[in-house]
């Protein structure tokens, strides 16, 4: 697959409040009984969105004003817990291209970047401003400018941070690592030859 460069993300946004939103919350383990990632979008935040009879609970994802959102906003340590790629897969398949949070758990960040999901870290004050804007008008279009590390929405713009390598991968379109790793095969053979437990 040839990816294209991700220089900016545009779309409306939704705020899912809370620190330490873990991967079991993002997608409960029982929905991982599958051999493909197809259809995982339906299970995003399942147990906090629905009761046991699949009736809607009060949750931003059930609020029709945010139905078109493609940018997810949350708080600190987003995606902590499991290494399951099912979590960012469900986010992407539910139509989100970017996550803005205070901070990200490391494995989640890597998995998301690999899929081309932009993970932008914005401090508490910045997120507060962004959330106030979108809650005053949920239809507002937001721009995540990856080149300049800025989130722009309504009349405001706030800076975000992102790991340098991740930003470069998004901008160059080489966020899916496989092709570049395959190119290193002869170097791999050399390293393998020096490791007694492998060779």
């Amino acid at each position, binding site marked *: 697959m040839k990816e294209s460069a991700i220089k900016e993300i545009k779309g409306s946004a939704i705020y899912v409040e809370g620190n330490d939103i873990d991967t079991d919350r993002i997608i409960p383990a029982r929905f991982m009984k599958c051999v493909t*990632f197809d259809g995982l979008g339906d299970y995003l935040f399942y147990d906090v969105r629905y009761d046991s009879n699949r009736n809607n609970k009060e949750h931003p994802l059930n609020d029709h004003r945010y139905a078109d959102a493609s940018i997810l906003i949350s708080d600190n*340590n987003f995606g902590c817990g499991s290494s399951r790629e099912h979590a960012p897969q469900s986010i992407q398949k539910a139509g989100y291209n970017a996550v803005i949070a205070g901070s990200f758990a490391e494995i989640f960040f890597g998995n998301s970047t690999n899929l081309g999901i932009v993970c932008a870290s914005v401090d508490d004050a910045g997120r507060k401003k962004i959330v106030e804007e979108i809650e005053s008008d949920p239809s507002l279009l937001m721009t995540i400018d990856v080149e300049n590390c800025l989130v722009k929405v309504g009349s405001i713009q706030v800076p975000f941070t992102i790991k340098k390598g991740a930003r470069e991968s998004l901008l160059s379109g080489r966020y899916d690592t496989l092709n570049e790793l395959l190119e290193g095969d002869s170097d791999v053979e050399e390293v393998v030859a020096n490791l007694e437990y492998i060779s």
Partner: protein
Amino acid sequence: MGKTLFEKVWEAHSVRELSNGQTQLLIGTHLIHEVTSPQAFGMLREKGLAVRYPNRTFATVDHIVPTNESAEPYSDGLAQAMIEELRKNCAENNITFFDTNTGKQGIVHIVGPEQGITQPGTTIACGDSHTSTHGAFGAIAFGIGTSQVRDVLATQTIALNQLKVRRINVNGQLAPGVYAKDVILHIIRVLGTNGGTGFAYEYGGEVFDRFSMEERMTVCNMSIEGGARVGYVNPDDTTFDYLRDRKYCPNGDEFESAITRWRAFASDSDCHYDDLVEIDANEIQPTVTWGINPSQGVGVNENIPTVESGGTQSERASIEEALEHMSFEGGSPVKGKKIDVAFLGSCTNGRLSDLQEVAQFLKGKKVAEGVKAIVVPGSQVVASIAKAQGLDEIYTEAGFEWRGAGCSMCLAMNPDKLIGDQLCASSSNRNFKGRQGSPTGRTMLMSPLMVAAAAITGEISDAREVFNF
């Protein structure tokens, strides 16, 4: 200046720098299981790629395996489909599979060490965040996502940023009744769930020097619960004694030369750490979590915090959310909370020494009425040795259900689940909302002996009192 083990292993496995500045790192040993690998094999097929080093990947099945039925097809068709998919992928690609009929199947983080696949100075990856367990041997072990499982299968490498290293010293003496599980719950309580982001944790000090390999594994296992993707202990004689005569380790003279090689990977005495944390072992209590992340723990004789005790608005919000989910009152004692289920097992605490430690106290005791207590050996090897030692009888006589090997109620991808808002005393690693299979289910994490104490009294109890320490 000397180097840390992390730096030495990283250098030995670095292939080259990638265009985004990350390192292409060789993964010497790859472990796979049924949940996070099928999509990776699917991606390979789609791209027409082969498995590059099939003899460096080892597979087992653990997450979805039922622990109360062994005949196939399983009652759960999805579980059956997953095990069959793994069988097919391993057979097609010549990958060693510790299947259910081999006597070696079990939780991947128990099987690797037990078979001697996990070795010092190596890099290990697995599509499971508790891969940090293998760091107990002085390996650098990463939990990875499915796209990276694909990368390892196709190239035997992944793209990574180098981590900083935080040395965590635990010196002093652990009191009787205080275990490795309490050490890691205490560390996470002190450093927080995201304190380890960007770090590898190097555990050391007198307590780790004395620890057995199984105790070291318990601590390294939960590194990720503190945000650290990697946790490790420097290899020493305890490590080498454990590995001697294991199936996938070198034999005879080769083992002796391997020891020389392995020992050289240990951090040098004059190495630089990016951060240093000192923990006093004497201060660690039997620890119990009261909330919905593993840092929300207290000593068994302490009270659950009040919302007002949170230092910041966001801490207060976290406490409030946790108390609401757990139906606990802030300021109330953690001791005395009535439990419904006791779960003894998982990659954190499902090893032979865990089962032995509890069994010696369990003789003559009975599980409280109304409590469902299950014990799930971490692997078929653990189960078989435990049975030979008569441990299964001790457990069943006390009223525990003795089950087959697997992940079981740690994450409830098999039939072992909480029902409704049941409260579970659990020796596992995560107390997230819904983790044990019911969205409203409640989990309290603790050491295996504390789980047994809760099972017997029907409520959270101090094991030292229940078992007359």
